[in-house]
């Protein structure tokens, strides 16, 4: 791979990572990573279970302003 293409690809990846972090698209991956390193032995929630329980948690407090 030419160095320029490599650089462009790396930048693109970084941008996508940023976008995913900003939109919390990567929340499940983060959770899995945490669950694997800390709570070894327990079965982590599925993607869907995690998503639904996160929504419940997020919307039971004040998370939006005027």
């Amino acid at each position: 791979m030419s160095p320029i293409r490599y650089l462009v690809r790396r930048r693109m990846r970084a941008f996508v990572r940023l976008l995913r972090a900003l939109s919390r698209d990567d929340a499940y991956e983060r959770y899995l990573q945490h669950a694997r390193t800390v709570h070894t032995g327990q079965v982590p929630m599925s993607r869907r279970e995690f998503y639904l329980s996160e929504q419940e948690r997020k919307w039971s407090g004040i998370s939006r302003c005027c």
Partner: protein
Amino acid sequence: MRKVLWGLVALIGAFAVGGIALRRGETINAMWIVVAAVCVYALGYRFYSAWVAARVLSVDATRATPAIRLSNGRDFVPTHRWIVFGHHFAAIAGPGPLIGPTLAAQFGYLPGTLWILVGAVLGGCVQDMTILFLSTRRNGRSLGQMARDELGPVGGYAAIVGTLVIMIILIAVLGLVVVNAMKHSPWATATVFATIPIAILIGLYLRNLRPGRVLEASLIGLALLILAVVGGGALNEHETLRAWFDLDGKPLAWFVIGYGFVAAVLPVWLLLAPRDYLSTFLKLGTVMLLALAVVLMRPEIKMPAVTQFIDGTGPIFGGALFPFVFITIACGAISGFHALVSSGTTPKLIGNETDVRLIGYGSMMLESSVAIMAMIAATLLDPGVFFAINSAPGIVGASADAAVTTISNWGFPVSVEQMNALAREMGEETLFARTGGAPSLAVGMASIFAGVFGEGLLAVWYHFAIMFEAVFILTTLDAGTRVGRFMLQDALGHLWKPLAETSWYPSVLLASGLVVAGWGYFLYIGVVDPNGGINILWPLFGIANQLLAGIALCVATGILVKQGKLRYAWVTAAPLAWIAIITTSATWEKVVSQDPRVGFLAAAERLATRLAAGELDAAQAAVAPQLIFNQRLDAALALLLMAILWIVIADTIRVSWRVVRGLPVLPSSEAPAMQVAAESR
């Protein structure tokens, strides 16, 4: 070299601020305001926020934050500071900073602009950063909990009551803004209605098809929303379809009330959460687009620096420059509501204490710049057009001819033809008396966007802007109703235990119903009020929001004094004193002023006299008793808010006095210090 650079920034800033403050008689380019704002923010951030963070708060880069100590992969997650900045900004930025400056533009561009800049740099940003920091030190405790822990139960209860009241008034006034934007506008109504099934579709997608893939779902939703705006335009051309969506204020108010109730009791994943994803995307995108467009277009500001309405006779809301400009612009300068967001979710994401400066101070600076853009969008319109859009028929006259005559006589020439041509361009039937700020902001935004990206799409841009504001507002409405419901259930639980059960359906329905009835009442009255309702509700909202800021600043000041930092306490005590002065004088005027456009009681009195004398026509007489009762209720509510603020201030003074005298006070609720491991610094 550095010093020279900052000296230059200070010089340019002083020149630009001086320029906007001293120019008279001719139009001024918006770039003056933009440059002044950028320089003020840069200086405030570089010097004041750094000093406050280091000296007053003593942020400690080596102290482990709750995100590190309590990391659980869910709410406590150490996150990169720019990502937290994005989340926090998305959380604090709502429709408030767009509407307040638009309404305050009736005083001219200068008073509002100066207050936005000074209020943010010395007040709002400091409040947000301080509360964020204090909550981070307390494992992300909420403002109410911190008030109870540090000041005592009185402060704690006051914070909770204040929050509930502000929530009710906020939702009512925002609901009114949406209703006024949709009233007799089939295009806007159809587009706003369409956002609901779109949100539900995205909700189902995120739950069933591709769980948790919020990025792709948001992009799909965004495309559908744009389609809805364009589709609304097509519908507007169709005779029968258009009639279906051509609705009066009352049915629209009932629709918003019903929507609020349904959204609050449905599971969050179905409507609330997906709507929020869409609104966040839209918000960040539109704010960036608007900033870019303002810089590219460099519009001329047509509104005078200061208008004659500083004497209190303004058509949009009654009341003189002092104190009402400071009440009208709450979000954008200082907003107590931010203290609720800054304590709770955000502190649990902070990876290092030093990040509070960027996240707390910086996000508020960005919010303030949104307010500046709203001010530019409002004041680039011809002043005559601006007042024609924003003045209620009760003030300028019900017919178009009467309105243009009144407004032109004020010295802001406007003609019926000009207004009709503008309405046609925007794809609307009429733009007269479209109060609430949203339509005039949308006209301003549409002219900016169209000026940069092509004239042909003016009507589409206008309705895009309306949809953008409506999506924002409806998100605040659902989320606010839900939070209000939780708070109410918590309170009702003291009366009867099962009522506190957040998953017990009868209790959910009861509490949601009560919250919706609370704001629904004020919304409905606002719709039937011939003076437009905004005149009453917005100042009340401003007072409530500033009251919350007052409570937050009290908590911050009390903690600083308890930590032995009395000599730095002015950092929060000075904005607190200012908040106390403006809210108290505003409440005083709203209650006792003899001018019926300002004083609630005077307005009730005059209406009662006119009703008794038979001066009202049948329609007016039918609603008069409700309006009279409402004005008196508003007076009582304003006094209640003021009492709460002064109780908390008195409590803070009591605690501070005890500290100074060396008497015992409640112990600090700060979590014990723990050093970060050296390798992870």
